[in-house]
Structures are given as structure tokens and as C-alpha cells.
């Protein structure tokens, strides 16, 4: 950030560059029991300049938050051992977590997707995520961040 000689530049004013660089400050948690999916999503997100952490199941994800971690975006698989995605989402929302939680699932039935959404998701996508999904989510995240300013 450059404190220029121009008199009217306010510290809270964002340039285009800042908006793009916002991605570098966004932290994402990938929750999935499949090492393959974790690796895949990790790679996709890193390509977009995001900081990624992974968790193997819903319980581990919830514990991360309990220990004070925070993330801007959580990619939550539905079917996991120990604690599944819907349960983990409910717990996180009950804990007051306001981060964007996006379900990623290979569930076929719209009814099951609906149930998952009702656990407290912001969005639900089919597995695996593709670049377009991620662009969309980043747009939404940046929109939310800009609204806060």
C-alpha cells in the first residue's frame, strides 16, 4: 500500500490490484475423507492463490475451529466417517461460525442435496469442483469482503 502525496487517498480505498491480491489472504479448509479429493481440491485452490488446509473428517474440521482457527471458505464433503458433512456444518453454525461453507458432494438426489443445504450451507456443488465453481466462490467471497469495508 502506497501512502501517496495525493491528498484525498483514504486508507480504506481499494485499487483493482488489491481486489485481485485479496485472494492471497483468503484461507480455505478442505474437508474430505478421500486423500485423492483433498489433493485435487488443494491443487485447484492453490492455483487461484489461496492458502489451503485440509481435514479428514467433520470432527477434525470442528476441532480446528474450537482451537481458534478461522477460514474464509470451507469446502465440506458430505459422506465422511466419524462425523459427516451435514453434522459438522450444523455444529459449526451452532458455534457461531459465519464463514462461507460450501458442500461438495456426489449425492445424486436433489432431496439429499436439500437436506445438506439445510444444515447451514451457503452453496452446494457436485464433486469434483471445477475451475468455474471456484471462480464463482471467489467472486462471492470478494464481494462479501468488499461489502464489509
Amino acid at each position, binding site marked *: 500500500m502506497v501512502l501517496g502525496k495525493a491528498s484525498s487517498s483514504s486508507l480504506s480505498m481499494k485499487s483493482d490490484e488489491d481486489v485481485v491480491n485479496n485472494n492471497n489472504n483468503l484461507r480455505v479448509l478442505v474437508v474430505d475423507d478421500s486423500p*485423492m479429493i483433498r489433493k485435487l481440491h488443494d491443487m485447484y485452490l492453490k492455483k487461484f492463490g489461496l492458502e489451503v488446509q485440509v481435514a479428514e473428517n467433520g470432527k477434525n474440521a470442528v476441532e480446528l475451529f474450537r482451537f481458534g482457527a478461522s477460514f474464509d471458505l470451507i469446502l465440506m464433503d458430505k459422506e465422511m466417517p466419524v462425523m459427516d458433512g451435514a453434522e459438522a456444518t450444523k455444529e459449526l453454525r451452532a458455534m457461531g461460525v459465519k464463514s462461507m461453507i460450501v458442500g461438495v458432494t456426489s449425492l445424486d438426489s436433489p432431496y439429499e442435496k436439500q437436506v445438506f443445504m439445510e444444515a447451514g450451507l451457503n452453496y452446494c456443488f457436485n464433486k*469434483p469442483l471445477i475451475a468455474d465453481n471456484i471462480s464463482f466462490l471467489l467472486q462471492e467471497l470478494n464481494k462479501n469482503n468488499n461489502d464489509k469495508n
Partner: protein
Amino acid sequence: MDLVQLQRQLVDYKTSLYNEGFLDEQFTQLQELQDENNPDFVVEVVSLFFEDSERLLNELTKALEQQSVDFKRVDAHVHQLKGSSSSIGAQRVQKVCIAFRNYCEEQNIEGCVKCLQQVRHEYSLVKTKLESMFQLQQQILSAGGSIPM
């Protein structure tokens, strides 16, 4: 065989894999994620897929051999296999998984056993083909060439 011939062979081979339905668009997306910083990404993800699939196929065999088959358990494994095969673009494996899940829902053990055979078959086909493709790629790289996309 010279480098140009090898490269042409690779392109033809890849094209045939798409045409015969072994691979789909998702595999292309996977390749696009690979770069100089992660030159083995595709091979790594595919290796994870192989490991995952072999584990799941063993679990499925065991589950279907039980006196009293737990269809929920069988379905959970097939669901995972469907997810991972679709994530790397192994289309034919994915398609059998869809049929397999229908038989699970119907609790049709004969249908399930048939599907297990089919999915084993499709899995071993795609595994062989991917391994051949990787071998060809390695030959090209060893000859100092680059992989045509």
C-alpha cells in the same frame, strides 16, 4: 521410434481413450492443473486413485461375500468409487458405479455381484491404459521432448 513419432503416437492414444469413453473432460481439467512447479501432479493423483480403487474393490468383494449382505455398506463403498472415478475422469468406471448403486438400492445381490465384476474389469482396463500413456510420456521426456497436449 523417433521423437516426433512418439509424440504423434501419444496424441493418437490419448484421443482414442477419450473416444472410447475411458476418459472424459475431467481428465483434461486434471492435466491443466499440472505445471512446472508440480510436474508429477497427474501421475500422483492417478496413483492415489489406483490405491483408493483397489482398497474399495477389496472391501466390496468382502462385503458381498457375507452371509447377510449389508447393502448400505456396499453402497457407501460404491459411492466412494463413483466419486473418485468421476474426479479423474474415468468415465466407464463411473458409469458402472451408477448401475451398481441402483442394484444396492434394490438390494439385488445378483445384480451387485455382476456389477462388481464389471467394475473390476473397467477399472483394470483404465489402469492399464493410463499406465501405458504414462510410459509413453516418460519415453518422450527421456528422449528430450515435451508432452503434446
